[in-house]
């Protein structure tokens, strides 16, 4: 199982590095990867049906509780089959669709990376590894949307999609961590046992809110839906695969997966119903306002995702069953519609639904596929879409007081989606063929066989629901609902309210298709509301955030080093002052303090005066001299307190510094006054606070008893081991000899630097060259 998931990543790496060694025939070989995985997953059908779920466990980071454990049950098997099955068709389709594209290998690399990550999402039992795969799908989707990397619009859409889904992923991560904190495990299977504890905990609201944001962003729910139409900038195979059949369903997967764990509470149901209903109606209305085939499909996909969220929100057994069937039905017909759109685009160069017509004259098989897909999307009997629609109406009708409203919303959405589906699947093929498309011809079977195959599946599963009823849908239903109820898929439910609603949907949808023609004018009118669309609001929100970040950064990273120093030290001082005033007992242990003699007082006074001079004077020479005095006073302190070596060093160095200063700098003009009085006062206050802080800290440290073990070791062994009487010298040249050597090197570097700065001639005259 691990290999099945990882294979796509290995393949992606191989393709991107070694493709140049392969020849052109190789794209067909690529398609073997999803195909073989599809067959691999098919063989689990029987086992899942009998056992319920299978766990595969591989250790990864045991110390953090993160494992690569995979859980294969009905839900994940359905997704795995969709991912690999539709993946195989898309791989085959792409061989012709992008034939001869210079980055074809790269495309396959991204595509297989996506497939592997998506498999990881639906198979992971460990929530952390699921999160990692989840983010990997966002990243591969980013690459695929931006595949036409020279088109700025592509890049922008890719970035929008990545920021929305990436943001949602991060929010979900916090949800996962919170869930782990409450439930005590990252493993979904283990968490299932503590479902009641989690639902009753105080964090429950937060957990579901965080998960909702993750699911809604991924599955393009209102108000995060707008990245999906933008993502249609990707090549059509990508739209088919990621943005209709699989990736956008990851959010649905998440909600379905967590239904037995977190579901069936008031907030869970009401939030999902509200968001789902708003999304499905909003997007369905939008889908019939568009004229670009891909936009129509994008909005109808969003609407379908809304239906799924809505159904999961209703949460009754019927609704969950409807969701399970609809996931499959939608994947089959929507992928087919996208592939057909791709063919039309490829052959005619147009996706404008107002112009396209009569193409059945030149591409009959494609027309057949489009016809089946459109009918399935409409929910015509004998097609899988019909069954899902029937069960959905049953579910909404059973929903207590709200049944009428919910059913009405569902019917409205279905009617509008019917129109959208007909526009995409039937309108381009009927009527008279316009002059400009006369040259279009039937493309290679590589393009039209995949959608036709999908259509045949819609038809087969729809006409003979028993084909999938027990093998696939039953396990899916069991894993979403967490119950053992046995389900029955029937073609004929008897003559009842549901059937009337179904007929009403078909008739009014057909009538609407007849009267409502796609029109650019209506589309233009909707643009007026663009300024209040969620996309605009969120985008301007992100702009405000960016400019706030800019202001924030410019305030702190303003390019003036001294302001950085001020910020850091002011913060440090205030923080320490807060701590010091807040309970540290500052005292002086007079026992430890040595008495003061009069010559020491003289040096102290001298030092203070010269410090003040060095700071306040405006003359360079005076401040250099004052600095010299500070150094010499320091030297005297060393001398008083038994440090002759220090005194000697300080003396010579101080002398040298003053001399150097005098020689080099005295010729500079007088100091100018750069700063205003206010700034000086501010700096002075900060400096005094900082100085006081250092003094207090010194006092505190001084009062602490200290250990002299190291000193004692050096003192005891200086003569015995190192044959030296001056302990300080012994430490420097013997015990810490290496340090001293490096220090010498540093001095040499400084000396070389000084020398070269003096000798450096920036404007050499020509004769030197």
């Amino acid at each position, binding site marked *: 199982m691990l290999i099945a998931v990882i294979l796509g990543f290995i393949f992606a790496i191989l393709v991107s590095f070694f493709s140049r060694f392969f020849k052109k025939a190789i794209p067909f070989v690529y398609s073997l990867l999803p195909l073989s995985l599809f067959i691999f997953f098919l063989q689990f059908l029987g086992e899942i049906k009998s056992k319920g779920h299978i766990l595969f466990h591989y250790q990864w980071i045991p110390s953090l509780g993160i494992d690569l454990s995979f859980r294969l049950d009905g839900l994940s098997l359905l997704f795995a089959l969709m991912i690999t099955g539709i993946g195989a068709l898309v791989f085959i389709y792409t061989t012709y669709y992008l034939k001869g594209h210079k980055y074809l290998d790269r495309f396959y690399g991204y595509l297989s990376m996506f497939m592997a990550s998506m498999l990881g999402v639906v198979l992971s039992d460990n929530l952390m590894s699921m999160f990692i795969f989840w983010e990997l799908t966002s990243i591969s989707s980013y690459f695929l949307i931006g595949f036409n990397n020279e088109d700025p619009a592509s890049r922008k859409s890719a970035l929008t999609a990545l920021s929305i889904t990436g943001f949602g992923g991060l929010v979900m991560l916090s949800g996962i961590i919170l869930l782990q904190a409450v439930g005590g495990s990252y493993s979904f299977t283990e968490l299932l046992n503590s479902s009641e504890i989690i639902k009753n905990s105080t964090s429950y609201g937060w957990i579901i809110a965080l998960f909702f944001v993750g699911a809604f962003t991924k599955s393009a729910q209102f108000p995060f839906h707008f990245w999906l139409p933008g993502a249609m900038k990707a090549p059509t195979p990508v739209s088919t695969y990621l943005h209709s059949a699989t990736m956008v369903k990851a959010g649905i997967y998440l909600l379905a997966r967590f239904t037995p764990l977190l579901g069936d509470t008031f907030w869970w149901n009401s939030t999902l119903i509200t968001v789902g209903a708003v999304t499905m109606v909003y997007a369905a209305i939008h889908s019939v306002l568009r004229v670009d085939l891909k936009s129509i499909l994008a909005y109808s996909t969003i609407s379908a995702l809304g239906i799924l969220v809505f159904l999961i929100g209703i949460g009754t057994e019927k609704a969950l069953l409807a969701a399970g069937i609809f996931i499959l039905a939608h994947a089959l017909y929507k992928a087919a519609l996208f592939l057909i759109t791709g063919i039309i685009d490829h052959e005619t160069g147009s996706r404008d639904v107002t112009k396209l017509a009569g193409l059945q004259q030149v591409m009959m098989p494609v027309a057949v596929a489009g016809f089946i897909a459109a009918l399935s999307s409409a929910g015509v009997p004998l097609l899988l879409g019909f069954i899902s629609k029937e069960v959905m109406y049953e579910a909404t009708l059973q929903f207590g007081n709200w049944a009428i409203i919910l059913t009405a919303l569902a019917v409205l959405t279905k009617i509008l989606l019917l129109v959208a589906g007909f526009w995409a699947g039937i309108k381009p093929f009927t009527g008279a063929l316009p002059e400009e498309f006369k040259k279009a011809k039937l493309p290679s079977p590589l393009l039209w066989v995949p959608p036709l195959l999908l259509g045949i599946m819609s038809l087969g599963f729809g006409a003979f629901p028993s084909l999938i009823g027990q093998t696939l849908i039953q396990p899916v239903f069991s894993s979403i609902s967490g119950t053992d109820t046995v389900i029955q898929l029937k073609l004929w439910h008897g003559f009842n309210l549901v059937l009337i609603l179904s007929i009403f949907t078909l008739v009014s949808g057909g009538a609407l298709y007849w009267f409502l023609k796609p029109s650019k004018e209506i589309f233009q009118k909707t643009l007026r509301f663009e300024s209040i669309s969620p996309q605009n609001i969120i985008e301007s929100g992100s702009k405000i955030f960016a400019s706030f970040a800019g202001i924030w950064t410019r305030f702190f990273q303003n390019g003036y080093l001294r302001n950085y120093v001020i910020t850091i030290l002011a913060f440090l001082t205030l923080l320490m002052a807060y701590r010091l005033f807040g309970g540290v007992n500052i005292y002086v242990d007079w026992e430890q303090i040595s008495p003061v003699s009069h010559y020491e007082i003289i040096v102290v006074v001298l030092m203070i005066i010269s410090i003040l001079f060095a700071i306040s004077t405006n003359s360079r020479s005076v401040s250099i001299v004052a600095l010299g005095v500070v150094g010499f006073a320091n030297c005297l302190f060393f001398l008083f307190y038994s440090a002759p070596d220090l005194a000697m060093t300080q003396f010579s160095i101080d002398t040298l510094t003053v001399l150097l200063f005098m020689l080099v700098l005295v010729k500079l003009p007088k100091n100018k006054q750069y700063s205003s009085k206010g700034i000086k006062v501010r700096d002075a206050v900060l400096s005094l606070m900082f100085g006081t802080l250092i003094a207090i800290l010194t006092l505190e440290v001084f009062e602490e008893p200290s250990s002299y073990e190291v000193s004692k070791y*050096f003192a005891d062994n200086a003569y015995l081991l190192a044959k030296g009487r001056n302990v300080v010298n012994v430490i420097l040249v013997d015990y810490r000899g290496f340090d001293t050597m490096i220090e010498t090197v540093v001095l040499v570097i400084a000396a070389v630097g000084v020398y070269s700065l003096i000798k450096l001639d920036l404007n050499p005259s020509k004769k030197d060259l």
Partner: protein
Amino acid sequence: MEILLIIIIGLLHAGGLYMLLRRSMFKMIIGLILLGNGANLLIFLLGRLVKGHPPVIEDGMKVFADIYADPVPQALVLTAIVIGFGLQSFAIILIKRVYNVLHTDDLDELNSTDEEI
């Protein structure tokens, strides 16, 4: 006496920081040197003050017979003084050079990197 030294250490740090925050490069170096002196004195003080007993073993003895000043901070400070000198001399020459080329002592006029040199 330690109290007086602590006051001086605080003063050196305060003065050093104040000068470091000036726009003039010359004052900045003064600030650097003051800070260095303050830090040296701080380390030295924390080795405790001992009068008249340098850490030198008397002739004919193999170990210390009497109390002695802590040699470790002294070794540290000695290193610090020397390194500090390396830094100071380099900085002094550098600002001289900058002044010769750009004719300014003002740090804020060095913010642009496109200066013709």
